[in-house]
C-alpha cells in the first residue's frame, strides 16, 4: 500500500481537496444545523404539555359589543353542548365549571411569598386531563387541592419576579415545591386550603382544579348559584379538520388561538428549516461535484500509472483503494468537524432562546447526527463507486 500510495498520490491537488473539504464542511454543517434547529425548536410550537394533548380545543362564544350591551348569555346551553358533541369531528365534549365564590391565593417558594392575587378556579371533567389519577384525586373537604397553573404564570414569576428579587427560577420539575395558599371567601366565612401545584399547562389558560373539588366547594360555599359553562373543551379526531372552523363560524363560536398560532409558527419553522437544509444539501451536492471532478482529473492524470498497475497484475479494487480511502478519510473528517462545529452554535442559540422560553431543553442530537451520517455514507458510497468505474474504464486501454 505504501508503494502504491507513493505512486498514486502524484497529482493529488491539495488546493482542490481543500476546496472540496471546505465546501462539503459548510454543506454538511448547514444540513445538520437545519435538522438540529428544527428538532430543538419544533417542540415549543407543537408542545404537548403533558396535561392536554394536541387534540383538544377550547370553545367559547364570541364576545361582541352587541352581546355585551344586550346582556345575552355567553353560557352554553345543554342543547348547544349536545349539538357540538354530535358533530362528526368531535370525540367528546366537556364543560368548564367555574368557582362561584371568591378566591384569593398567594404563591411563593421556599417560604418566601412571591405574589398574591384574587383569582378563580375552573375544572374540566377528569377524563380530559391527562394526568395520573392519584395526582388528580380529591376527596370532599380535603385541605390539599391539586392545581395545574397556566404556563404564563411561570414566565411571569421567572422573569418578572425572580429576576428582580434575585430569587431562584422555577422549572417544570420544581412545580411541586411552590407554596400555594388558597383562601376561599364565602358568605360569612373564610377557609384556607393548600394548593399542590402538579404542573403548568400552556394549552389551558386557567387555574385548573379537579372537578370534584369545584363541585364540592360550589355546593359548600355558594349553593344554588348558576354554573352554566361559558367554555367547553372538545376532544377532536383531527385538529386540522376543516369542518371545525366552518362549524365554529356558523355558530358564532370562538376557539382559543394559542394552539393555532403555534401551528402557524411551527409551519413557518418547518419552511425555514426545510429551506436551510435544502441549501445545505445543495452545497453538499456542489462540493461532491467538485470532489468528483477532482478525482476524475486525478485518475486522468494518472491514467498511464493506473493502466500499468492493472497490466502487471493489480486488481481494479486494489488500484482504486487509495483514492477511495482518501475520499472516505476526507468525508469522515468533514463529518467529525461538522459535528464538533455544530455544538458551539447550538449552545449559543439554545442560550438565546432560553431567555424567552425557559423550558426549552434542546432535542436529542441524534437526528442531526443521522442526517450527517447519511450524507457521509451516501457521499462515500458514490465516491467509491465512481472511482471504481473510472478505473475500470481504463482497463481496456
Amino acid at each position: 500500500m505504501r508503494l502504491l500510495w507513493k505512486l498514486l498520490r502524484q497529482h493529488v491537488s491539495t488546493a482542490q481537496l481543500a476546496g472540496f473539504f471546505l465546501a462539503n464542511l459548510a454543506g454538511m454543517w448547514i444540513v445538520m444545523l437545519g435538522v438540529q434547529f428544527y428538532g430543538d425548536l419544533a417542540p415549543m410550537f407543537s408542545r404537548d404539555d403533558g396535561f392536554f394533548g394536541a387534540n383538544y380545543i377550547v370553545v367559547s362564544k364570541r364576545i361582541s359589543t352587541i352581546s355585551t350591551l344586550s346582556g345575552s348569555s355567553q353560557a352554553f346551553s345543554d342543547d348547544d353542548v349536545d349539538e357540538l358533541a354530535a358533530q362528526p369531528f368531535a370525540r367528546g365534549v366537556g364543560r368548564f365549571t367555574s368557582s362561584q365564590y371568591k378566591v384569593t391565593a398567594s404563591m411563593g417558594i421556599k417560604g418566601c411569598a412571591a405574589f398574591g392575587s384574587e383569582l378563580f378556579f375552573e375544572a374540566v371533567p377528569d377524563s380530559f386531563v391527562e394526568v395520573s389519577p392519584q395526582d388528580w384525586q380529591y376527596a370532599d373537604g380535603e385541605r390539599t387541592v391539586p392545581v395545574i397553573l397556566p404556563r404564563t404564570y411561570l414566565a411571569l414569576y421567572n422573569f418578572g419576579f425572580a429576576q428582580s428579587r434575585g430569587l431562584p427560577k422555577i422549572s417544570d420539575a420544581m412545580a411541586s415545591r411552590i407554596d400555594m395558599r388558597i383562601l376561599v371567601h364565602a358568605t360569612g366565612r373564610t377557609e384556607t386550603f393548600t394548593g399542590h401545584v402538579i404542573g403548568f399547562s400552556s394549552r389551558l389558560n386557567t387555574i385548573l382544579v379537579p372537578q370534584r373539588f369545584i363541585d364540592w366547594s360550589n355546593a359548600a360555599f355558594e349553593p344554588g348559584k348558576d354554573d352554566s359553562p361559558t367554555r367547553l373543551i372538545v376532544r377532536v379526531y383531527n385538529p386540522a379538520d376543516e369542518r371545525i372552523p366552518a362549524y365554529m363560524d356558523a355558530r358564532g363560536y370562538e376557539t382559543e388561538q394559542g394552539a393555532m398560532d403555534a401551528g402557524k409558527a411551527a409551519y413557518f419553522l418547518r419552511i425555514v428549516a426545510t429551506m436551510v437544509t435544502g441549501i445545505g444539501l445543495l452545497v453538499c451536492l456542489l462540493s461532491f461535484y467538485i470532489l468528483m471532478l477532482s478525482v476524475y482529473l486525478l485518475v486522468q492524470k494518472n491514467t498511464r500509472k493506473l493502466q500499468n498497475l492493472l497490466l502487471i497484475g493489480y486488481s481494479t479494487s486494489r488500484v482504486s483503494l487509495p483514492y477511495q480511502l482518501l475520499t472516505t478519510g476526507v468525508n469522515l473528517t468533514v463529518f467529525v468537524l461538522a459535528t464538533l462545529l455544530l455544538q458551539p452554535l447550538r449552545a449559543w442559540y439554545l442560550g438565546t432562546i432560553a431567555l424567552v422560553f425557559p423550558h426549552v431543553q434542546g432535542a436529542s442530537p441524534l437526528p442531526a447526527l443521522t442526517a450527517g451520517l447519511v450524507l457521509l455514507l451516501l457521499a462515500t458510497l458514490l465516491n467509491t463507486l465512481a472511482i471504481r468505474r473510472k478505473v475500470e474504464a481504463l482497463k481496456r486501454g
Partner: protein
Amino acid sequence: MQTISTESLLPHVFRERRDTLQSDVWLRDVTFERGHSYLVEAMSGTGKSSLCAYLIGYRHDFEGRLLFDGEDSTRFPDARWTELRRCAVSYLFQELRLFPELTAFENVEIKNRLTRHKSAAWIESAFERLGIAEKLHTKVGLMSFGQQQRVAFVRALAQPADFILLDEPVSHLDDINSRIMAAILEEERRASGAAVIVTSIGKHLPISYDRTLHL
C-alpha cells in the same frame, strides 16, 4: 496452465489483407506449450505488439479464438485476467511500462509484493548479475533505456509464471548483457518449467528455441 492456443486469430486491422497475408500465426492454429521456447520473428507493422496485447488480455480487437488451456478467453471476466497476469503469464513490455518516479528496486518490488515470489536477496543478485546493482535505489526515470530494460526483465521474473512473454527484450542491450539475461532466463525456465515466448524484429535473445514463428 499448460497451453495457450490460437484458432484463426486475426487482428481487425488486418481484415482487408486477409487473402494476401503470409504468417505462421495469423489465421493459423498455433499452440504454445508449457516447457517450450518460441521465437516470434516479425517485421515492423506485422502485429507483434497486438499479439502480445491479446495474450495478456489488454486488447481484444481480433477475430478467431484465443484459448487458455482450451478455454475461450473472450468471456474471461476482469478478475480472471488479473489472476492470469499475476500468476500465469509474465510479460516484459516492449515499452517497459516502468514507473519513473519509483526506484529500480521499488519497480520490481511493487510487482513482487503481489505474490512474494522472489526474495529481496534474489532481486539484488539479479541486479548485480545484470550490472545495475549500483542503480538499485536510483529512480528509474534517471536511468538509460538499456538499464531500464534490465529492470523490467527482473520485474517480469518477480512472479510465478507458466508463460514468460518477452517483447523485444534485448533491443537496447549489448551482447554481454543479452547473454546474462539469457542465462538468468534459462535458470528460471529450468526451475519453473515455464514456456518462453520471445519476439524480435532483429536482435534475438540468445537462448535455444524449440520453434520459430514468422508473424
